[in-house]
């Protein structure tokens, strides 16, 4: 397709997509694991349109070089980061205990990560509940084999004290890391994960409901989108990474 016509294609795609959005609410599960050695962009159309259908159609992978499916040994912490690692982001975050960390501090363990905000009364508790369900599905005796990470999108309100309170309120037991950061860094992480959010006038947020499974190097291995999708794939992804 010539460049000149790409734009027209984009407009057509947009029209088609607008039509699709008339039937929203399709929860989807996104499987990002590809065979090791798969070419980056292998799953994108060869002449991709600028318009990515986001509803009711398959979603293009967030990460170009998908993580290898097989579990791998943990690398030493000073080894260079994998180019596809989310931990390539250089942002600094504050944990609920007040300590400042880089995302790369999460390296070395399979992580299950979601964005949330502590005053969210509807979707976030469900997302956290789904993460707990994944935690409960971990193999017996290996409850700490995977870590769980909640990153707040409410940069104005969610300070360490509120995050500590949230962990208590939600009865989070085991390896949970709650992080707050600045607006630009949250937006950047969200952009990388394909997570969309917007603050509403009442101070709340409209946002994606997404749980991301990261391998021990921080590569996106699986994303579960929606509040009522089957968690079996997410659990399977975690167990595969744990080699169980």
């Amino acid at each position: 397709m010539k460049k000149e016509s790409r734009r027209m294609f984009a407009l057509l795609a947009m029209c088609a997509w607008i039509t699709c959005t008339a039937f929203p609410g399709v929860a989807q599960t996104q499987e990002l694991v590809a065979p090791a050695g798969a070419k980056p962009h292998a799953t994108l159309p060869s002449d991709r349109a600028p318009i990515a259908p986001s509803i009711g159609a398959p979603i293009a992978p967030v990460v170009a070089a998908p993580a290898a499916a097989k579990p791998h040994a943990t690398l030493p912490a000073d080894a260079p980061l994998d180019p596809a690692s989310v931990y390539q982001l250089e942002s600094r975050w504050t944990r609920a205990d007040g300590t400042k960390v880089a995302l790369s501090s999460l390296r070395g363990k399979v992580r299950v990560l979601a964005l949330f905000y502590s005053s969210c009364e509807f979707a976030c508790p469900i997302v956290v509940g789904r993460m707990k369900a994944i935690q409960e599905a971990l193999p017996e005796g290996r409850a700490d084999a995977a870590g769980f990470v909640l990153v707040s999108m409410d940069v104005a309100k969610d300070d360490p004290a509120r995050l500590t309170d949230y962990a208590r309120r939600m009865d989070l037991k085991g390896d949970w890391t709650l992080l707050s950061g600045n607006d630009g860094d949250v937006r950047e992480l969200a952009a990388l994960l394909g997570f969309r959010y917007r603050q509403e006038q009442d101070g709340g947020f409209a946002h994606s409901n997404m749980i991301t499974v990261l391998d021990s190097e921080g590569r996106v291995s699986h994303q579960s989108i929606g509040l009522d999708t089957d968690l079996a794939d997410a659990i399977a992804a975690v167990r595969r990474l744990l080699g169980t």
Partner: protein
Amino acid sequence: MIRSGFRTFRSALLVAVTIATTATARDDSSPPGMVRIAAGVYEPLYKNEGERPVASFFLDQTPVTNAEFLEFVRANPRWRRSQALALFTDAHYLEQWRGDLELGDADTMLPDGPVTNVSWFAASAYARWRGKRLPTTAEWEMAAAASVTSARGKDDPEHYERILAWYAKPTHFPLPAVSSAPRDFHGVRGLHGLVWEWVEDFNTALVTGESRADAGLERNLFCGGGAAGASDFRDYAAFMRYAFRSSLDAKYAVPNLGFRCARSLTEKTP
């Protein structure tokens, strides 16, 4: 008679000059190549998002050009085409260039044409390197609401028609020089009619389907009379921008998507 006519003309001129100097907010303190946009109100496409005040800010007069972006990749090897991480760009990143540090042919791109095929990550990195940032949706849309003659383009009936005429036209390559775009009321060029532009918070657009069921957004977006809740039905172009932004992924490189930078008044000049 002549004298009074002249006086009328002179006072009219005076009024015009006064309006021009106060309302365009052009300012000696503006950094080179930037224009100060006066504080105002952003009227989002959807009323349920509510109008929100936008503080005065500086905006680049023109989109970033290929030549300017070349300076950036020269100084930042990690953003060269061969070295940029697949995490932050897709395979089309800077594909109009011949090489890492070599611009493309004249039938593909012009050095002083807008740089395109840059991801949001690359555009953000460029802006940071310049001591600037990408404009927010609110800032971009507020600035882009201006027509050639008015800060409120909606008062100018031909304004929407001109914009839609551009949207209806396929993009021709090479994209023209950024200086060829007409100056609008603020002294800014090419917000319409040149390329689509990244905004800092592009990923606020359109949260549907997967969003909180009680957010009520999907009811207000696109389905049925898609414009339900829209603040201005005539502004079809704004619907298109909204839809376009909501379809973007931060690493996409698109042949007619570029960017320009902004800076808050409080940010220090680097």
